């Protein structure tokens, strides 16, 4: 009896989880399969697979011909990677300083550095645009990198500090006895130590940067500095009637993220769950 009940409830659980799986995946699959079809097939048989006569790469051809998607990708990649590098390095340095040393104003500076978690930087957009214009950085990737670094630092410092406070001091003290300078201690002892949480910090910082529409739209809308997110937004705005191209543009925007996610999902989810436990 008990066995039957267990069996039944496990079936119900899987039914619920499968239902949400379908709901989560179906829209994406629908876009991906239709992006490979002819216009007739997109409208006539939306659920069919792109095989035989319905297969068409026209959408992709027009996306590649009419736009600078490879360049947009380069821009997004540059902005995301460089910002991430600064967030991780400067974040770890600051977290090390506040968690390792006792000095006047330590509490103040730790609170000051993490208050940005609660106050989104977007609220300062008006003055931020003035500042970027004043520095002559409009329509540059540098502007985005600086803003995203500032935006990502609070959460990075918070997670790194929490982690570093839980790490034993012995290893650092023994390095000191060996005569290592404080800088070498940071680079040779502390940085390797924080490796486990780097994934967490990277995920938390990376997704909002890659997907952001607000700052690219306001700070660097120029053709040359467009990110993928902004590029897709503008491209689709222009070609709303060309369904094949729109579907292809969407797929082009999804696929790299999808591939990266399929490769790294295990580490990524583990990274988030370990980080979230602290929060």
């Amino acid at each position, binding site marked *: 009896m008990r066995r039957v009940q267990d069996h039944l409830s496990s079936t119900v659980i899987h039914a619920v989880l499968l239902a*949400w799986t379908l709901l989560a995946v179906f829209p994406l699959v629908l876009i991906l399969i239709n992006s490979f079809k002819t216009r007739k097939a997109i409208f006539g048989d939306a659920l069919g697979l792109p095989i035989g006569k319905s297969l068409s790469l026209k959408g992709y051809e027009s996306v590649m011909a009419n736009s600078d998607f490879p360049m947009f990708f380069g821009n997004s990649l540059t902005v995301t990677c460089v910002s991430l590098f600064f967030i991780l390095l400067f974040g770890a340095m600051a977290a090390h300083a506040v968690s390792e040393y006792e000095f006047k104003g330590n509490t103040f500076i730790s609170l000051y550095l993490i208050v940005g978690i609660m106050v989104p930087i977007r609220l300062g957009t*008006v003055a931020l645009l003035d500042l970027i214009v004043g520095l002559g950085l409009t329509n540059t990737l540098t502007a985005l990198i600086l803003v995203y670094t500032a935006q990502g630092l609070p959460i990075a410092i918070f997670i790194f500090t929490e982690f570093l406070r839980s790490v034993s001091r012995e290893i650092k003290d023994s390095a000191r006895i060996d005569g290592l300078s404080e800088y070498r201690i940071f680079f040779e002892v502390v940085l390797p130590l924080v490796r486990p949480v780097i994934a967490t910090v990277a995920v938390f910082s990376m997704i909002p940067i890659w997907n952001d529409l607000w700052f690219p739209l306001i700070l660097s809308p120029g053709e040359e500095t467009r990110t993928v997110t902004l590029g897709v937004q503008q491209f689709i705005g222009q070609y709303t009637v060309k369904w094949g191209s729109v579907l292809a543009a969407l797929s082009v925007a999804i696929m790299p993220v999808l591939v990266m996610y399929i490769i790294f999902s295990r580490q990524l989810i583990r990274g988030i769950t370990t980080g979230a436990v602290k929060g």
Partner: protein
Amino acid sequence: MHTDNPIPDYVKRRWYILVFLAPATLIYTVFAIYPIVESLRLSLYVSDEGQSQFVGLANYLRLLGEPYWAEQFWNAFKNNVVLFIMHMLIQNPIALALAALLSIPTLKGAAIYRTVFFLPTLLSVVVIGFIWQLILSPLWGVTPDAMEAIGLGLWFKPWLGLESSALVTVTLISIWQYVGIPLILFYAALLNIPEETIEAARIDGLNGWWIFWKVKLPMILPTLGLVSILTYIGNFTASFDLIYSIQGGLAGPNFSTDVMGTFLFRTFFGFQAQLGDQFMGATVASALFFIILVGVGCYLFGVQRKLQRYDS
């Protein structure tokens, strides 16, 4: 700590602390804190023949007093509140339910499920917005056909285009995409509950259902608080991206999906006949700042304190 020993030389000149702190503090101060503070200051000024002039709280009085501004402000505010409440009542319970199912220790395939559930969260809002716009479009016919197939054909409407249903539809799209974040936070919290606690409840004769309500839920209340405040901040600031991608800067139809983000964008950059106004833009942003401050304040002083008591 070192009161017994004389302070060694290397402790006195601890320049390295400054070196470690400087890059982060500098970038963060210049590109995050200064713009926010400066925007707050700008909200107290107006443009007078090219010069900025101090006017105290006059901009705020305009925002809340003049019908032209007040109407837009309260409309956007109301829509944000609707957005927030719907996320709290729909997104977070779904996330909690899915997380509870995923955290069952004997569940097979949990890794696959959670990978899939987090997938939409990862994608750009712009992409997600367009995908749903296409799927719900009467032009394509995927949705009408699907509804026809299950006998609901007559119920189809161009939901995103109707004033009465646009906001709800956009919110459901947002819920669909972002359910992954509370889900993963709840999931992590549930995994973190010690096995012995659950075992003890089982020995007391509670079944899975009651263990969840009486044992697990009280233990993850702090996460519930965290999810609530994240939902609150996200709704008031990040909702711009989705609305702007699906409905455009005018947040149509007839401003029915206007949120604080799109209102700020229009005020700052102007639209149609109205010119952009830096100072009113700063005022809207600052109003938003205070709205978020109230939420964060409630969280830190109320919810957080109460929840920690449960915790200990």
